[in-house]
């Protein structure tokens, strides 16, 4: 469904990604793990059209989206929760969500994957605080709003960049429950995560990134053994 082939990217004089390839199948949950500065976020920005790839191809459901601008990706069933959530802090929760719903409706017409009611049912906290400015919500609540906003874009593949960063363990657990529920509905997932413990809990397989390249591939069923693998420790702690 999502196929990234030999992508390279960077900023100005900096080359961050070198020849990165990965795949996410239909309804599959794949993790991209690696230490800080490995280039994970740059890959997210490249896939979702915020950063122009300098080489390689990105294909979604058979359509080449390498040069598609970020605001058109909802039409290809792709939504992303960026690092730090990137919500519109001064706007209310409802306003944040309405924006996404309008776009999602345009992309899918009557054939909505997630209705407003379903999404708000999935996130009771969000429903309670619809009128509050987003910046007054706690970090965990904001993360819920960010996921809800992405879902209203009606994606079949969700990319999440570091959804657990800076959140208390209890809150992370709640978010994992939501993600599991989405998986059961057949949602594809590309999870970018530094914390391999979390990643292994909700994904089928994974790629390990280091210094701008994919250095290991963890196949289905290999997660548990890999968690204690010295190769993993080396990728993180040198």
């Amino acid at each position, binding site marked *: 469904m999502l196929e990234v082939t030999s992508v390279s990217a960077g900023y100005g004089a900096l080359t961050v990604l070198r020849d990165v390839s990965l795949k996410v199948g239909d309804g599959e949950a794949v993790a991209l793990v690696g230490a800080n500065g490995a280039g994970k976020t740059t890959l997210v920005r490249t896939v*979702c*059209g*915020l950063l122009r790839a300098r080489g390689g191809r990105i294909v979604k459901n058979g359509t080449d989206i390498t040069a598609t*601008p*970020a*605001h*058109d*990706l*909802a039409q290809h069933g792709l*939504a*992303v929760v*960026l690092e730090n*959530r*990137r*919500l*519109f*802090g*001064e*706007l209310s929760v409802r*306003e*944040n969500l*309405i*924006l*996404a719903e*309008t*776009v*999602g409706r*345009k*992309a899918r017409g009557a054939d909505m994957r997630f209705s407003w009611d379903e999404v708000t049912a999935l996130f009771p906290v969000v429903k309670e605080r619809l009128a509050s*400015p987003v910046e007054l919500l706690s970090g965990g609540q904001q993360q819920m709003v960010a996921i809800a*906003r992405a879902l209203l*874009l009606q994606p079949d593949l969700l990319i999440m960049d570091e959804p657990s960063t800076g959140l208390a363990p209890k809150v992370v657990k709640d978010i994992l429950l939501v993600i599991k529920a989405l998986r059961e509905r057949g949602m594809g997932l590309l999870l970018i995560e530094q914390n391999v413990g979390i990643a292994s809990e909700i994904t089928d397989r994974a790629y390990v990134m280091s210094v701008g390249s994919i250095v290991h591939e963890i196949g289905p069923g290999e997660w548990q053994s890999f968690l204690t693998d010295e190769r993993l420790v080396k990728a993180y702690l040198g």
Partner: protein
Amino acid sequence: MTLSLVLQAIFAGVTNGIVYALVGMGLSAIFKGSRVINAMQGEFAVIGAMTTVLLLTRTGWPYPAAIAGGAVAGALVGAFIEVAFVRYMARKNASEDSFLLLTIGLALTLSASVLFFIGRDGHLLPPLGGEGVLIILDAVIQFHALWLIAIGIGATLALRAFYHRTTIGLSMMAASIDADGAATTGINVGRMRTFTFVLGGLLGALGGILVTPLIGVDYQLGLNLTLKGFAAAVLGGLTNPLGAAVGGLTLGLVESLAIIGISSSYKDVVAFSVLIIIMILMPQGILGRAGRRGG
């Protein structure tokens, strides 16, 4: 100093203040949406007013239609400037200073165009609500000024509703708060920037049309209005168009109350001194951080 003198100054201050507010709201809307300080904001006022004058006198349109025509002209010029210049320069990562120089150049060009095509003379528009005046405690206020105040307040409320109640308004705010977040929510950030210039042009033109029955419009009006509008926007915190409305009113009142009894050309000295002092001492504007929300 008599009461009627003070009252008269307040009337004048509110009237001027509304005009500054409209120009400042446009400037602030453009800055909020594009991070460009538009040094030709006052020219929008000239374009709006001159177009209205021409439509009224040369083509004989009815007054309300001519006013609408003037406002649309401001909006169109705004869109043109974004599409023709700002977009190109933004793609090349032009500096703040380059945008300032660009808009100064455009201001010179537009002012010279008015001089060339329309001439050196000032033009007046008929006052809304006729020539009548209202007299309160010996202080005189023209009916037109009352209309101006009403329309100015109406436009401010309409702007607020536009930002919070329409999808385009919300999208414009979203794009200005977090461009990446907006793009990944399916908002075309580039198009929103064009819309902010349309909005800025519209508000500036409206300010120009409303002030013309009182002071007339000529090719030189733009620069002074730009500076006053900028002062209004800075007082309001620059990224908050509704703050600019408060800023404009404050500025109008301060300058007209400060010069009671002395020569009126000190008005600009007062206004611009206030601008400099506020920028240095209160960079967030007179509303402070709280004023950021709700724009």
